[in-house]
């Protein structure tokens, strides 16, 4: 079968040399993440020096008005934004790597599965029906919408013979997306408030959300990451083929269920907090595979860190390119990610089964 041949088989064990390289790689990624996070605190409509950032984070309250202002910017704008970008980036990165593993589908991406539009539709609907205006109120419905849409698309694509065909999943996602988009537009057109909320929420942004939203979302994502990590050893075996995995004592149904639950938690929570961000998981999973090789125990954590780095960088780019305005992180990710995806397709990395 074309699709299984495309995904590389995990190499058993690995020499001390590759192990050292992987540890070094993860360490480097961590360091880059810290550096980018600091940059994210400093860059924006008002650029701050490292000393000012330091003061904003740890400085004692003073009567100096300028320093108080800096504290305010750092505490209420830059820190939540940076934390959300890291958390959501990890969620999308881990989710992307997991979904590619469990579907054995190299073009699987949580954003292409209708998860985004499911969340949009839910958000717009509850705003129109209940008149919610606070993100804390509608974030739960976004979560619900994302989860339902994801499960429907995933379920559709995994019925019968088409399961494992990358095209089926992509088309199921695209079809459900178009359907939900039209429904969303219908609701938004008949309700001014939801139209206004939709256009901001739909862009995919890590800005403008407070810690009252970030903490619960982080909770879901933490559960998703832990669940996802527990599946990694069996995921390696699953990629040797179902029969081999069963022979080696993997409970396939259990492993898949846990994996899909983790993916839904991760994608749903990230989408609920930031709006739709497509292609990020897809991109970083491929880069991570290139860095670590096919062993999912290394690939998934690496993809998570990469996701955080890329989302942060895209957010920073968005703050810089159209000053004094801002380009939402989701838009920057799509503008970078879609060509990346096209190049993967063009290089013939995968073809129909």
């Amino acid at each position, binding site marked *: 079968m074309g699709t299984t041949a495309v995904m590389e088989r995990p190499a058993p064990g690995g020499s001390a040399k590759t192990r050292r390289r992987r540890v070094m790689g993860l360490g480097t990624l961590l360091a880059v993440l810290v550096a980018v996070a600091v940059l994210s605190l400093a860059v924006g409509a008002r650029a701050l020096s490292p000393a000012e950032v330091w003061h904003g984070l740890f400085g004692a309250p003073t009567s100096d008005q300028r320093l108080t202002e800096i504290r305010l910017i750092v505490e209420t704008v830059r820190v939540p934004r940076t934390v959300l970008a890291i958390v959501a980036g990890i969620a999308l990165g881990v989710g992307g790597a997991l979904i590619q593993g469990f579907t054995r589908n190299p073009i699987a991406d949580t954003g292409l599965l209708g998860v985004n539009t499911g969340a949009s539709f839910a958000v717009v609907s509850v705003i129109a029906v209940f008149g919610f205006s606070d993100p804390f109120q509608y974030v739960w419905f976004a979560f619900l919408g994302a989860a339902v849409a994801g499960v429907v698309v995933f379920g559709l694509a995994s*019925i019968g*013979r088409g399961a494992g065909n990358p095209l*089926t999943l*992509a088309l199921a996602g695209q079809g459900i997306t178009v*359907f939900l988009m039209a429904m969303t537009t*219908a609701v938004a057109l008949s309700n001014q408030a939801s139209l206004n909320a939709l256009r901001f929420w739909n*862009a995919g942004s890590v800005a403008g959300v407070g810690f009252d939203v970030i903490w619960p979302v982080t909770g879901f994502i933490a559960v998703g990451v832990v669940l996802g990590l527990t599946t990694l050893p069996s995921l390696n075996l699953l990629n040797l083929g179902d029969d081999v995995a069963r022979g080696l004592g993997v409970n396939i149904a259990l492993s898949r269920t846990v994996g899909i639950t983790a993916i839904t938690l991760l994608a749903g929570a990230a989408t609920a907090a930031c709006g739709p961000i497509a292609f990020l998981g897809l991109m970083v999973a491929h880069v991570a595979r290139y860095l670590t090789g096919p062993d999912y125990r290394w690939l998934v954590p690496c993809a998570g860190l990469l996701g955080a780095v890329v989302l942060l960088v895209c957010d920073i780019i968005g703050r810089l390119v159209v000053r004094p305005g801002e380009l*939402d992180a989701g838009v920057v990710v799509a*503008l970078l990610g879609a060509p990346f995806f096209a190049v993967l*397709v063009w290089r013939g990395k995968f073809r129909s089964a």
Partner: protein
Amino acid sequence: MNVTEVKASLPPGVRLGRVSFFWRPWLVGVSLLLAAAAFLVFCVSIGVGDFPIGLPQVIRTLLGRGEQVDEFVIMDLRMPRALAGLVVGIALGVSGAITQSIARNPLASPDVLGITTGASAVAVFLVTVSGGAAAAVTETVGLSAAALAGGLGTGLLVYFLAWRRGIDGFRLILIGISVSAVMEAITTWLLVTADIRDVAQAQAWLVGSLDDRSWGEVEVALWGTLVLLAVVAAVAFQFKPMHFGDEVAAGLGVRYAAVRAVLLLCAVLLAGVAVSAAGPVPFVALVAPQVAMRLARCPTPPMLASGLVGALLLIGSDLVARAVLPVSLPVGVVTAAIGGPFLVYLLVRANLR
């Protein structure tokens, strides 16, 4: 399958000089019935409105023997809308039939190939960016024509990006999805930065609608569609053998690449014309050929019947949107509501087969 087997499996042929075609009485009968049904719904659609006109009067007026009041209401007020529905439906149906035949995938449609998202992006750009070059473009060529150009540009971009020693249906679809994502990102960004009053107007461009059509807009679409249908009809006679695959087609002596390129270009143009007249009406291009195929009992989507089913679907949906639903909605919402479940059905069927 070799050439003799293919020839044996084909229905009896008819040859008139250089032109030859298959003799399928069932298909002819179904097409005639569809044409009659389309005409009937067309007349009903014209009769429905704030000033209802009975079916006999509508037909009498269309034949030029109606009363003066009816003639004014029908020819000046309602005809453009009904005609736009007819033309757009036919264009989308035929366009879908071509793309599905070329990609040899029932789920391929112009929506997937980026044409609709490209046209929407241009339209939204012109609506939301006021002044300067945008205003000049809107004034000189008109919004519809500019959207048409945007759709064509995007369609051609997808085609060229997917070209790699020939066109592969799978690559075409995936590249289409990624280019669509870029266009969607641009549209989203435009909506975020725009004035809320412009957003409502732009939003109408994101789901298809037949509201407030004028004769001017309809005429462009009408002539465009007629010319393109003539080209398709002329080329389609060489098209049949292609369904059996590249090698067989080459064996049967068809100038495979050239014919396919011309047809694909026609499909892109037809979809572009449809979008310029009604906005991106979702799913008609996907559903119509599949319904026509089942009605006509053909192995591949029949062109003419697909167009007629498209017209029936679009006018019927518009009728439902105006007359049946409690709130008036754009026609695209109704076609999405029909198309979404139909897509699910197609996917499940394709997978279970």
